[in-house]
């Protein structure tokens, strides 16, 4: 008997170890004195920086706001619906119930996509954009069925005569309803509310499709994936974890003291839970509100790559905050993780500033989606070096102002890689089997394959794409994984031998792992420019030009350059940079090398779709 008891404890312990081990890791890394996942000392810094980070605090506030509202609305809608459903019997009831369960049964990705289609469809008719309202509606949509599922059983348990008895004893119908029926249903209502709140808080997939410009925390984290997830997020999770744990312990202790097991107390317990949960939400909400109270009137909508602007860390300027302060405006800052995602969002939403890459700018110009810039309002344009003006994607330089540039290079681990690394051939070297990483991005992956085949990657044909995909299929057995952001963890923690990636990012990886080195492929490589543009549907183009001009200030450029790690086209900025960076061949390759490189040009939609489709086919099972 004793032995069995021990076995049981051991088993329960093991399961909880399994559930909590990753949480422990997550908390541990919130104290890591480095942005990478290599442990480099203990620090509390991320907790301080967290509260200074407007984007995260705004996202947190938004997340809580949506969660509270979604939970409240779906609790009301669901409770009312359960009461209505209660009187239906047989087939009708079954139909309603099945319909109601669809959002639960349906894969989230299907629900998300279908709602996106709905909102885009309605948006075109009624002229609205995806955002707070659409996000809230979709959250109410997937939360309500859970409320119904938790209220309905309580409704069944309730004695129908109670309602009548209350009325007999002199209650009005309304009184009877609120004092008797709602009281009886309260535990179900409370648990419905809590389930809704929980689901809404952590929902990523559905929000991803329906949130538009509105940033919530899970989406913020997802966009960070393009670069690296900041330990600030770990710090935030740790705080949430501690708070939740504290609340649960308090409720558990106070609950256990007062009631043993009576049914009536269930309701009281629920009420208490609800009060505590609300208190917690108000506390967090207040905190967030405090950190972002502002009274500016003009709003600038900026849509940028994840982690692509200095935010005040590591001695840099907080560029957005500086701009807001200087011109007394509010910047609404949003992030994306690929040109294609930006393009998809631009179809239904308006932004004042976007920072796409070269070929995407070409596409946007071709589709007449950009506003010609008034360079009189951007005097700092003179700071841009001539090499970065009039590039093929914008031949007369009417629509764009370059922001950063770079090349695709190879990063390798000196202790792990076999053979000499001189060019992209190394990615097909059998000796490195299972330790080769490859881009999980059709454009960059196919370009490398085309270079090896001697094809021109800047403007591929369908036949080129087919050939390149064959080569990728040949490479596939050697590939450890197709990655984007995971490349940081994998290279920095000695998990992979070699990977192609963007020069500025490789520089950062090398900073975190001494065994890493870089190689500029001898055959040349992709040279890319990200540039600031103003879309046609911008609401505030003058302010946007002011912003572009501000970004071209030499000191602002230095901060951005230091934070992002990519090369700057701003000659005044470059002159202010450390000599070590300025002369770094990885970030600022020589003119001779750049002459060997090529740029992507605008690819027609059907070719791009073909590329995407073929790449998925070549890189998956």
């Amino acid at each position, binding site marked *: 008997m004793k032995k069995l008891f021990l076995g049981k404890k051991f*088993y*329960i312990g093991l399961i909880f170890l399994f*559930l*909590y081990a990753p*949480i422990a*890791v997550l908390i541990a*890394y919130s104290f890591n004195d480095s942005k990478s996942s290599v442990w480099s000392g203990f620090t509390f810094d991320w907790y301080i920086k967290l509260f200074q980070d407007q984007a995260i605090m705004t996202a947190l506030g938004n997340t809580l706001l949506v969660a509270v509202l979604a939970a409240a609305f779906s609790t009301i*809608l*669901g409770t009312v619906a359960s*009461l*209505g459903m*209660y*009187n239906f019997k047989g087939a009708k009831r079954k139909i*309603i*119930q099945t*319909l109601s369960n669809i*959002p639960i*049964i*349906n*894969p*989230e*990705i*299907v629900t998300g*996509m*279908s709602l996106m*289609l*709905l909102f885009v469809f309605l948006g075109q008719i009624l002229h609205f954009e995806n955002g707070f309202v659409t996000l809230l509606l979709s959250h109410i*949509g997937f939360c309500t069925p859970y409320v119904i*599922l938790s209220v309905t059983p309580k409704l069944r348990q309730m004695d129908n005569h109670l*309602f009548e008895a209350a009325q007999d004893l002199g209650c009005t119908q309304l009184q009877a309803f609120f004092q008797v029926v709602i009281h009886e249903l309260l535990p179900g209502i409370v648990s419905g509310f809590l389930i809704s709140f*929980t689901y809404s808080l*952590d929902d990523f*997939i559905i929000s991803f499709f329906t949130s538009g410009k509105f940033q919530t*925390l899970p989406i913020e*984290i*997802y966009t960070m994936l393009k670069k690296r997830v900041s330990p600030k*997020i770990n710090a935030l*999770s740790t705080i*949430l*974890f501690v708070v*939740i*744990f504290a609340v*649960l312990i308090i409720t*558990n202790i106070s609950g256990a003291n007062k009631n043993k097991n009576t049914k009536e107390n269930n309701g009281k317990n629920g009420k208490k839970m609800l009060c505590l949960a609300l208190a917690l939400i108000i506390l967090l909400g207040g905190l967030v509100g405090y950190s972002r109270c502002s009274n500016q009137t003009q709003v600038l909508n900026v849509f940028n790559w994840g982690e692509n602007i200095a935010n005040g860390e590591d001695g840099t300027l907080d560029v957005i905050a500086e701009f807001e302060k200087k011109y007394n405006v509010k910047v609404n800052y949003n992030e994306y993780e*690929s040109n294609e*995602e930006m393009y998809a969002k631009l179809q239904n939403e308006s932004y004042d500033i976007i920072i796409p890459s070269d070929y995407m700018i070409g596409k946007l110009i071709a589709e007449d989606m950009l506003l010609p810039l008034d360079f009189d309002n951007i005097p700092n344009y003179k700071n841009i070096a001539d090499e970065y003006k009039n590039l093929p994607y914008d031949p007369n330089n009417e629509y764009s102002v370059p922001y950063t540039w770079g090349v695709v290079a190879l990063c390798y681990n000196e202790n792990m890689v076999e053979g000499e690394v001189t060019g992209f051939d190394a990615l097909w070297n059998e000796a490195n089997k299972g330790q080769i990483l490859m881009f*999980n991005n059709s454009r960059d992956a196919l370009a490398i394959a085309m270079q090896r085949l001697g094809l021109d990657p800047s403007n591929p044909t369908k036949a080129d794409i087919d050939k390149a995909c064959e080569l990728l299929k040949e490479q596939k057995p050697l590939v450890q*994984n*197709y990655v984007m952001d*995971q490349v940081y963890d*994998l290279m920095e*923690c*000695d998990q992979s031998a070699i990977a192609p990636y963007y020069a500025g990012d490789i520089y950062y990886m090398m900073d975190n792992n001494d065994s890493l080195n870089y190689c500029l492929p001898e055959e040349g490589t992709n040279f890319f420019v990200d540039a600031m543009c103003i879309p046609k549907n911008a609401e505030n183009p003058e302010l946007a030009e002011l912003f572009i001009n501000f970004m071209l200030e030499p000191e602002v450029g230095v901060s951005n350059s230091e934070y992002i790690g990519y090369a700057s086209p701003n000659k005044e900025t470059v002159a202010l940079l450390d000599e070590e960076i300025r002369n770094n061949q990885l970030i600022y390759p020589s003119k001779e090398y750049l002459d060997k490189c090529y740029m992507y040009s605008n690819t027609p939609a059907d070719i791009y779709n073909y590329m*995407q*489709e073929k790449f*998925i*086919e070549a*890189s*998956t*099972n």
Partner: protein
Amino acid sequence: MKTKKLIIPYILWMVVFTLIPLVLIISNTCRDNNGNFTLMFLQKALNYKDEFLYSLWVAFLSTSICLVLAYPLSYFISQSSERAQSTYTMLIMVPMWMNFLLRVRAWVLLLQTNGPIDSFLNMIGIDIPLMYNTGAVVLGMVYEFLPFMILPLTTVMGKIDKSLIEAAQDLGCSKFNVIRKVVFPLSVPGIISGVTMVFVPSASTFLVSQYLGGPNNRMIGDVIEMLYKSDKHTASAIALLLMIVILVFMVIMNRFGDEEAVGV
């Protein structure tokens, strides 16, 4: 109580936010950009049948493992005192409040070569690849969705009348037989809802396999995520097929029990 009318707002809601979106998915699947009827996109979607089958296989493995792990745990929990029960339930729910992307990333750090688990296994002489295989993907899924199995099972088992178990023991049932003949049949609704709640998301979620799996472990959710930006039609077609597969699965599951158990 005459409350039938109260259902009206919800019916309207469901029409707008459930039915019309589904119709839009179907219309996106069957019509090209010019509005002409075509089956091309469905055909294209079928190119990804390997990812489909693989996703179902991963979902099957994850669900089975969740069930095996959760069943005894839920039984132990349901047998403990009420206070312990609520504590355990809380402890199981808390990890779900942490962002799921961060938790998956944490697993990468735990499982990587020379990471804590790999080092430990090497020390005791086991050298197996921990990442970039189906095992790692399944582990990620089990981790993400285990609470969805434990919670309904615990709820259902907690409701089993203790006197039934005592009666069975009094009548000479062995411990094993008590579970087999009393607890198990009564816990079937919990099993069904648990299986559904684990199977559906693990067949369709994305990102887990991108982090823990290798190039041969892509799942259908990842394909939709990669495709929807460039080709909404094929993405809709895949979504539609996925939905049909899941619905068929639900119908089969419901044959085993009362449909109201779903999603307890």
